[in-house]
């Protein structure tokens, strides 16, 4: 398994390590519920070094991204982050990724850990096909990433940086310093809380981790693993690539239709337009259990005794104290309050469709 630069720190903290897409990652340090609650109440620090970073540079960097990605990036300003989708020729989602505009003719794409190579290959083949004047570089191995998430994130990070964090709006970033080390500070994340994603050179990310641990521990911050990251994102109605979304899923079937700009040409558009024309048969919807049990990935969903789909993500929600999940079901059965059932082992348990997100923070 591949290790992040922080692996020895996780081991020293006695973290439970799992294989996540070929990476040895901490799933929890003490308890998923404790780490989840620390994120909602105070703050938590996550090692996200396994995610991918791809740099796109050159006079036609924007043209390449406009063709490769579904979202219109023409209006994106330097310092702004945009979520977008990369499709295959069938209109399926290869990745949902974020686009950082570093400068004119210079972008950084932040990819999911497991899609980094497919993303790179897809974008490279589109570049070659259209002969754009741009270059691609996979800088994942030399780039470290930490997520500091939770309502006290700003207070903690402010002690370590000369820049005024209040000036960074949600989904914007600045080149800055953390503990004297050059770093990109982005106000964004995957937990539904305020917080930051911090990028720095891989060999220096350990020093930033240590400084944040020192600064945050007295303020209720905890290191948190992928277990809490998963319950936090699910409560906030965010999808996990590879689980809720696969290459067979199109943006119209999940809450990603807003990422598609139909006024421009993009790779995968003809297939996606055909799907739009036909209408989608299945959609991703949120549900909560009204009966006993916890729905898990792959469990069947039924309505009036007939199968209408299956669970893509399911867990016990530490904030709401109930079992929640996402399911891919027939489009006509996705209205809120629709009564459904989940097959759990040898029983069926009642559930109902609910609007997303399950949890929204108080602003």
């Amino acid at each position, binding site marked *: 398994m591949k290790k992040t630069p922080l692996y020895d720190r996780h081991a020293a903290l006695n973290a439970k390590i799992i294989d996540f897409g070929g990476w040895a990652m901490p*799933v*929890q340090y*003490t*308890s*998923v*519920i404790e780490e*989840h609650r620390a994120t909602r109440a105070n703050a938590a620090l996550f090692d996200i070094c396994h995610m991918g970073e791809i740099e796109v540079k050159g006079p036609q960097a924007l043209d390449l991204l406009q063709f490769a990605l579904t979202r219109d990036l023409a209006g994106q300003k330097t310092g702004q982050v945009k979520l977008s989708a990369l499709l295959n020729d069938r209109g399926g989602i290869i990745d949902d990724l974020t686009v950082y505009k570093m400068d004119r003719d210079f972008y950084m794409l932040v990819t999911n850990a497991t899609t980094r190579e497919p993303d790179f290959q897809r974008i490279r083949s589109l570049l070659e096909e259209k002969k754009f004047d741009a270059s691609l570089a996979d800088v994942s191995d030399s780039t470290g990433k930490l997520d500091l998430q939770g309502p006290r994130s700003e207070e903690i990070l402010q002690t370590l940086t000369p820049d005024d964090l209040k000036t960074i709006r949600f989904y914007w970033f600045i080149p800055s310093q953390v503990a004297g080390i050059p770093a990109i500070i982005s106000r964004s994340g995957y937990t539904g809380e305020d917080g930051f994603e911090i990028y720095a050179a891989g060999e220096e990310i350990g020093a930033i981790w240590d400084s944040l641990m020192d600064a945050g521990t007295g303020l209720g911050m905890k290191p948190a693993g992928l*277990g809490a990251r*998963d*319950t936090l994102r699910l409560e906030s109605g965010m999808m996990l690539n590879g689980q809720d979304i696969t290459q067979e899923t199109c943006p119209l079937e999940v809450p990603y239709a807003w990422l598609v700009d139909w006024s421009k040409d993009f790779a995968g558009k003809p297939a996606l337009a055909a799907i739009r024309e036909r209408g989608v048969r299945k959609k991703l919807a949120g549900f909560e259990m009204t009966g*006993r*049990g*916890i729905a*898990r990935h792959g469990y069947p969903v039924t309505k009036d005794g007939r199968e209408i789909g299956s669970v893509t993500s399911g*867990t*016990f929600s*530490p904030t709401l104290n109930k*079992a929640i999940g996402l399911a891919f079901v027939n489009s006509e059965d996705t209205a809120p309050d629709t009564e459904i059932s989940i097959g759990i*082992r040898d029983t069926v348990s009642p559930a109902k469709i609910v609007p997303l997100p399950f949890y929204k923070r108080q602003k």
Partner: protein
Amino acid sequence: MSKPNPTDRLYSKDHEWILDRGDGTASVGITDYAQEMLTDIVFVELPPIGKKVAAGEPLAVVESVKSVSDVYSPVGGEVIAVNTALENTPELVNQDAFGEGWIAQLKVVDPEELKTLLDAAAYDALIQEEKH
């Protein structure tokens, strides 16, 4: 660090404990080591009263936030009582695995099967081995 394994009962290699009550029945639960591995138990699926199980067959299901695990019956028997407190407070298994967190009480079919299980010292050795 897990609590010491009480010497008044026997253990399976799958990390269940069984306490012979001396009247042909026995209580079953998971060990403190097992609950520590699982952490954050949020749901326990209890067996129905009257369910018959053979040794090594699934008796109950314990779920943490991230995982679903079967609890195997250390011996063959019939379920005569279950710990209904776990329906609303599954965290009792985390807090007191050897006591308030018991899962079911069985009428033991063949007391000879108890002899195949581990005593506390042998179980201690097993978990030491697993830790390394």
